[in-house]
């Protein structure tokens, strides 16, 4: 499968919930089937001062891989382990310690059309809303290079299409995609969204000026 996770811009004067509702309505109109909900959560652990250099460890769960627990270091090294790994983190309490109130999660509805699966995730840290992440999965193809144009054509029907693949994917265009690649993409977005200021109705800082108009135009074309 090839998966791309993209941030969905929130136009000025709209709340995140309004944008999500708009997207759900749009997908239903385009004959997408709603196939349930999903959640991806991430908790950050910091190494104790005894470890040099200091490390940041992210423990990520994805409801699509319920038996797995992903652990990714800030170096990019990613471990895919059994869900028992959570219990082990408790044992490592003295070495890696979770910072309170850093748990970030993206959750929302899942839609399917043909072999495509689209997930609309509302990202929040506790009660504070941080943005919208759209995950697009194409199951039949395993190499991003082969289906990039196909994905672009698919995305065009409901969102602004990036000219180039996101940097993470771009470096791996010719390789076979694995679940780790999904986790890594979420991790990159989570890191960015954590730094972003909490929002209710203002656009996220990463959005390009005028992007809301372009979304509108693309929507009309589709």
């Amino acid at each position: 499968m090839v998966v791309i996770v993209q941030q969905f811009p929130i136009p000025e004067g709209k709340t995140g919930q309004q944008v999500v509702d708009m997207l759900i309505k749009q997908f239903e109109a385009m004959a997408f089937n709603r196939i349930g909900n999903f959640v991806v959560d991430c908790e950050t652990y910091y190494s104790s001062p005894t470890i040099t250099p200091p490390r940041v460890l992210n423990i990520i769960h994805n409801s699509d891989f319920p038996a797995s627990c992903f652990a990714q270091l800030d170096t990019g090294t990613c471990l895919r382990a059994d869900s028992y790994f959570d219990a082990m983190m408790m044992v490592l309490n003295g070495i890696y310690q979770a910072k309170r109130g850093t748990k970030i999660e993206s959750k929302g509805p899942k839609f399917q059309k043909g072999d495509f699966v689209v997930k609309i995730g509302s990202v929040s840290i506790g009660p504070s809303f941080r943005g919208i992440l759209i995950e697009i999965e194409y199951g039949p193809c395993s190499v991003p290079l082969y289906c990039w144009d196909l994905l672009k054509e698919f995305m065009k029907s409901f969102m602004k299409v990036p000219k180039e693949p996101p940097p993470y994917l771009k470096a791996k265009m010719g390789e076979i995609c694995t679940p780790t690649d999904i986790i890594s993409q979420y991790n990159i977005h989570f890191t960015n969204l954590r730094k972003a200021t909490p929002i209710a109705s203002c656009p996220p800082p990463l959005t390009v000026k005028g992007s809301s108009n372009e979304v509108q135009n693309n929507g009309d074309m589709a």
Partner: protein
Amino acid sequence: MAEMINLDAVTEGLRTIASLRNGVSDLFKCLTEGVGGPVIDPYSGQPKTSDNEPTEEAEKQFLADVQGIVEGITNKILVLEKSCDLLSHPTAQVSVQLSLLAQDPALERNGVYKSVVSCYRWCDRMHDYVTQASHILNQNICRRSTIALDPLQRILIPGGIGRRSSFATINTPSSQIDAFFNNLSRIHPNVTLEISRPFGAPTVVFITLDRILKGCLLLHGLLIEWVIVKGINEEFKTADGTVDIWSDSRYEVFRKISDHCNSATLNFATPVHVDLAVRSWLNWFVNYNTLFTKPCRKCNHRLLDASPPTWRDFRTADCYHEKCRP
């Protein structure tokens, strides 16, 4: 025509056999009863109650009886042998007589002649049909290879017209099939072929096309009987290692392609050059290496109903969505 059989000797022989069997059963009866008459009462089925020891006289009488019966048997055997000698037995002549059975003038009674004639006609006609059919089918192949507008097919027949196939029967030895596929994988560098025979004689070929898709062919001899296509991340083997050639792919695209592949086997099938059918089929199949990249020739889009163009034309190899097919 048949030599007269000595009927008297036959009758005499049969009568002797009857009395011989009679004599033998007399002997057995006499021996069963033993000395001094039957020990078991023939009416009640109970042993006789008298415990008298058999007298010497009775024993003598018993021996005389047995002797008399055995003598009678010996005589009857001699008579039987004599009547057998009287019968002439020319074995060679008997077989000749059997071969003349069909010339029995009473045709309507046994009907052998009639069915022999109809069988012969049937065979004759079948031979005619086969000759005709083979002629027509051969012509057909020649035409396919020489049509100018058919670049795909022309590549398929490097030897040109009149090439003889060594794979004409379904009983092709497995070593020959292996060699054939080894040869094929050399022609297509982006195709990996893996041969296995998990069901005994039928060959199963696993095809991997680039990193696009996987296929599984079930062959009977070199005849493609079943095709199934799956994604590169799907398996044809179950968890316990057995080969599963029936379950479909979990993706819509590959289920559709499986259907197209099976219909392609019918399109490329030829009764005479079986190897050519497989070769042409694979030549067509490798066009799926553009499955995700090539837009539809008619609508120029990659997606229609969230599906890429799954159809590849049999002659031109152009790609179309199923609904855009010309």
